[in-house]
Structure formats: structure tokens, C-alpha cells
């Protein structure tokens, strides 16, 4: 049984110009101790789908799903109070912007101890001891001193370590890291990723890593889910995807990787992810797909089965199977 199981998750925002579907019928599974990477360009609904799972979307969002279960709990039909007993304890999340994700008015120590009191009911001394332990674990030097620092006194990398310490404070079963390194320097990025993977190895927690960096996926993840315009368009074990992507969009993403570039010029994908007003009929990728034909532009492809990586494409690549069109 998987730790996290999402079936047919959709999120719609009511905006001043009507409804906008940011996440469209997404399925997702994460097993204990597994690293799932979710990749895709900006605006493909990666953050929104995970925020929906956490119950962190604003009231303008309408979340629907057939199933949203985590560790045996049904998150879909759960009161806010029950959900708050799980969120921040067994299911934790860290965000892209470490500098703005910590409260500027409280010390980082206060912010980390708050979670310990709420979920584990530790007394003051135990909280202090555990907070120091956590800071050591995430590699913050002079933890005792750092506990009384305010976020603005620490660097971005240090703040992200604080965020990670806070997220793993209650030994979560699943950690969702939403582009945890995007806002950081390149050297710090690698350190933070190493930290996340080593924490997973030590604790056996599951890890969802949201990123748009294929290099990071190749180095860290077990399985990868490619999202485009709110839809999951392919999901594969990492090695399989890198060897032979089925969906033209995955293929284009991989070609954008420097190491795989066959020509001098990096192949960038022309065009942008469709937004609220330019959602095409048929396949959402058709305006940018080099293989698109009239069938693609009128009929929206349903996902294939596991053997073809759930690819949402009429004409998957790298397959011997004959596709009836």
C-alpha cells in the first residue's frame, strides 16, 4: 500500500474572469522511503497540486478528487482540525523562498519549537534539546546560538536549513519539497539537495521533490512525474524516462539538458505553457508539439497504461507498440 495516493485531483481557481483549471485530473502515488520528482515548466500546476494535498490553498480554489489518502487517512473528507493533527507532523512541506517563508518577528528557535509543542507536547527543556539536535542534523553551525537568531540575520541557505529542520522536527513520513533550491546559490543548491537525500536515507521518509531541473531529477529521484499545463503527461522510473521518453514534451525537456544536447545550440521548446485564455482544444501540448496533426488538435488524448508511462499522447515515442490512430 502506498503512503500517498492521489486519484483524479483537480483544482479550479475562481478568478475575476472566470474559472481557471490549474490542476487537471492528476493521479500520484508515493511509497514509503521513495523519492518522487515532479517536473514541468512554470505554471504547470506542480505547487498547486501539492498545496491542495496540504490544504493550503486560498478559498478561491475549488479542490476535487476521487481519492486523497495519506498513511491510511482520508484527507478529502476530514475536518480542518483533524487535518491539522497530520499536517506539520506526518506530512510536511518546505517552500521555494526560504527568506520569506519564515516569520520575521520571531526567532527561528521559537518557530521550530512551536511545532514541537503542538504535535509532540514536549516541555520547554525537551523542546530546546530537540531543536538543537535538529539544527545539528541539518548542518547549522553553533546551533545553540543560532536558535535565538531572527530570519533576517541568516543567509538564504541557512534559512532553508531552518525550514528543513522545522519540517522534519516531528519525523514526518512524507516531506514535500517545493523547489527548495531555486532561490539559492548554485553551491548551496547541491548542499541542500544532499541534505534532503541523506535525511531520507536516515529516516526512511518519502520525499516529493518539485523542480524544473532535469539534472536534479537524474541525480536524486527514483520516479519522475512530468506535468504540463495542469496535467500529468508522463510518469516513469527515472532511468526509463531518461533512456526513452514516451511523451514528446518529456522528450523536449530532456533535449533541453546540456549534457544531452547534440547540436551546439540548446534546443529550447518554443512557445509557453497555455494559461487561462489560450487553452487549446485537443492535446494541450499540440501548439508546441512538432508531431502535432489535426487529430491532436481536436481530440484530447487519454493517458496510456503503466507500460507506456501513463503518457497522455496519441502518438507516444520510443515504442514498438503499434498505435491505432
Amino acid at each position, binding site marked *: 500500500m502506498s503512503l500517498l495516493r492521489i486519484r483524479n485531483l483537480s483544482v479550479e481557481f475562481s478568478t475575476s474572469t472566470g474559472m481557471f483549471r490549474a490542476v487537471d485530473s492528476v493521479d500520484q502515488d508515493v511509497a514509503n522511503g521513495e523519492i518522487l520528482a515532479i517536473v514541468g515548466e512554470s505554471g504547470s500546476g506542480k505547487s498547486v497540486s501539492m498545496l491542495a494535498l*496540504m490544504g*493550503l490553498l486560498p478559498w478561491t480554489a475549488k479542490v476535487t478528487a476521487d481519492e486523497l489518502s495519506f498513511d491510511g487517512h482520508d484527507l478529502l473528507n476530514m475536518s480542518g482540525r483533524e487535518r491539522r493533527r497530520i499536517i506539520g507532523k506526518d506530512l510536511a512541506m518546505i517552500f521555494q523562498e526560504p527568506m520569506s517563508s519564515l516569520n520575521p518577528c520571531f526567532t527561528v528557535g521559537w518557530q521550530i519549537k512551536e511545532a514541537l509543542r503542538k504535535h509532540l507536547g514536549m516541555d520547554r527543556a525537551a523542546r530546546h534539546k530537540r531543536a538543537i539536535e535538529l539544527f545539528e542534523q541539518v548542518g547549522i553551525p553553533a546551533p545553540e546560538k543560532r536558535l535565538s537568531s531572527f530570519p533576517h540575520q541568516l543567509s538564504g541557505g541557512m534559512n532553508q536549513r531552518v525550514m528543513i529542520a522545522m519540517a522534519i522536527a516531528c519525523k514526518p513520513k512524507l516531506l514535500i519539497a517545493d523547489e527548495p533550491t531555486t532561490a539559492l546559490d548554485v553551491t548551496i543548491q547541491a548542499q541542500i539537495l544532499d541534505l534532503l537525500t541523506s535525511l531520507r536515507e536516515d529516516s526512511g521518509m518519502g520525499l516529493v521533490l518539485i523542480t524544473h531541473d532535469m539534472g536534479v531529477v537524474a541525480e536524486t529521484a527514483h520516479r519522475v512525474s512530468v506535468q504540463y499545463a495542469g496535467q500529468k503527461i508522463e510518469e516513469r522510473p527515472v532511468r526509463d524516462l531518461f533512456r526513452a521518453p514516451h511523451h514528446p514534451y518529456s522528450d523536449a525537456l530532456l533535449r533541453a539538458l546540456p549534457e544531452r544536447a547534440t547540436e551546439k545550440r540548446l534546443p529550447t521548446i518554443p512557445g509557453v505553457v497555455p494559461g487561462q485564455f489560450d487553452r487549446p482544444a485537443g492535446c494541450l501540448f499540440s501548439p508546441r508539439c512538432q508531431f502535432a496533426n489535426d487529430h491532436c488538435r481536436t481530440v484530447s488524448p487519454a493517458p496510456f497504461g503503466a507500460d507506456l508511462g501513463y503518457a497522455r499522447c496519441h502518438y507516444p515515442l520510443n515504442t514498438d507498440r503499434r498505435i491505432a490512430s
Partner: protein
Amino acid sequence: MLKYFASRLLTFIPTFIGVTLISFAFIRLLPGDPIIVMAGERGMSPERHAELTAQYGFDQPMYVQFWNYLTGVVQGDLGNSFVTKRPVWDEFFALFPATLELSLCAMIFAVALGLPAGVIAAVNRGKFFDRALMSTALIGYSMPIFWWALLLIIVFSGILQWTPVSGRIDLVYYFPNASGFMIYDAIMSGQSGALWSAIRHLILPTIVLGTIPLAVIARQTRSAMLEVLGEDYIRTARAKGMSPSRINAVHALRNALIPVITVIGLSVGTLLAGAILTETIFSWPGIGKWMVDSIFRRDYPVVQGGLLLIAVMVMIVNLTVDVLYGIINPKIRKR
């Protein structure tokens, strides 16, 4: 923090000199000869007029007069009132407690209602309570104080007969060795009914004086809360599983207080200006009424000394606000 406090304190000196000059100039820019006003209806001979003018030093050049005034001020001598002949200093501190008591009550009233109202409005943004509250605040902000006071007097003193129309306490009570703070004096005197009488006299002036700051604080709190509630760190707090009430009252309010404290500090100046009107309407024997009377009497020492002391009070309040601001906002504290 100490360094921050000291640097704030240093800005006091030029401000103080400027205020001394302005208060000195203000009354002299008003037309009217104080000697003639003193003489009143009786009139006076030109010789007597010249004699008095020399006695008060009005025949000397302005800069000499100002220098004499400034040296007096630095030594703590604000001169004597032309009318009562008593030191300005003594008169001010005899009347100041009345104004301070009223202003404090008005401020407490405004903060105690304005903060929660703003928070509740922000949390229920766009719903009925929010709209109703913000419309009321707008009315409160734009209503003429004089009209509002009369309305309250007509309803609560006239029709309902709940509150007295003027003064600070019923005349049957008398406190020897009074501190001037009526609530405190009434409690210490132990006379039955005295406290209740003092409170009843305070209610309407407090509401009248506190209305504008209340509206300002409620609106500022609401907008500050709305801004803070959209911040990333609020999402982090929710991701930790914190309850909405804790997030609003602890995580968000603490940040929202930073701009609100500034507004509270600024409204202290408005409050003292409003006190002049409110004291006049309710015959409240404070410095507001005293200043207005003195301006009509061209009582130079009282006006310039009173203005100076009021300005110093505002400066002290601002300094306190700065310090509070430093305590609330860690970005300033640890610089």
C-alpha cells in the same frame, strides 16, 4: 537597542529648539496687543501703556526677547501668566492630568476596540461584518467632532439622562491633596459613588475624542492584517498545522502591529488637537481649554509655554512609540 534609543534622543535637541521658536513666533504673529487686551474695556493712557510695554520687555528687539525666553526655558522657567500671575509651569501641571486622563482613556478606547475590530474584519474579508465595520469606520472618520459630541449629548444626557453634560465629577465630591487624575483620586478617597461619578463624566468625552483614532486604527489594522495574511510565512505556519486563531492572533498580528503602532503614535498628535475641541464642548478643565482661553487673552507666556510643553509631550510619546517599534520589529532592534 541602546544605540538606537540614543540616536532617537539626539534628534530631540534640534526639534526642541525649533518648537521653542515656533511657539514663540506663533502668538506674536496674531494681531492684537497683549497690554491693551489686559486693560480690557477700561482703556489706558499712552504713558501707562509705554510703561507696561517696557516692564514686560515688549519694547526690545524680537531676537533679544527670544533669547531671554530661550535662556529662561533652558533653566526651566517658562514665565508667569499675564492673567493669573502664576508660573506657566505650575498651571500646566495643575491642568495636565485632566487632559492626560482623558487622552489616555480615549486612546485605550480606540486601541481596545480598533485592534480587534480590524483583525476580525480582515479575517472575514468581504463578508457582512467586514463591510459593516469598514463603512462605520469611514463614517466615524469623516464625521465632524462637534456634531458627533452634540448628538451623543442629546441622546445620552438629554433623552436618556445617563451621563452628565460637563465637568469631571459631581460637585458633592471633594478631594484634598488631589493628584488631578480623577479616577485615581476617586478610588483613593474611598468616598462611595465617587468613582462611578468620575467614570460617568469620562464616558462621553472619551467616546468623542476616541472616535477618529478608533476609525483610523481599525482601518489600518485591517489593511495591515490583510497584507500579512498573504505572506509566505503565514502559509508556513499553516503548513505546521497551527490553528487559524493562533495564526491570526500570534503569527499575523505581531507583524501587522508594526504599521499599526506607527499609526497609533501619529494619532497621539491628532488626539491632543482633538482634546482642545472636546474639552471646550464638555467644559473639561484641561490644557486644551486653558490654551484656547489664553489665546483669546493674548496671554503670551501661557500660549508659548503651553505649546512648548504639549510639543515636548508629543515628542516623548513619539520616542516611546519608536522604542515600542524597536521591540516589536526585530529588524530594527538588532542593528
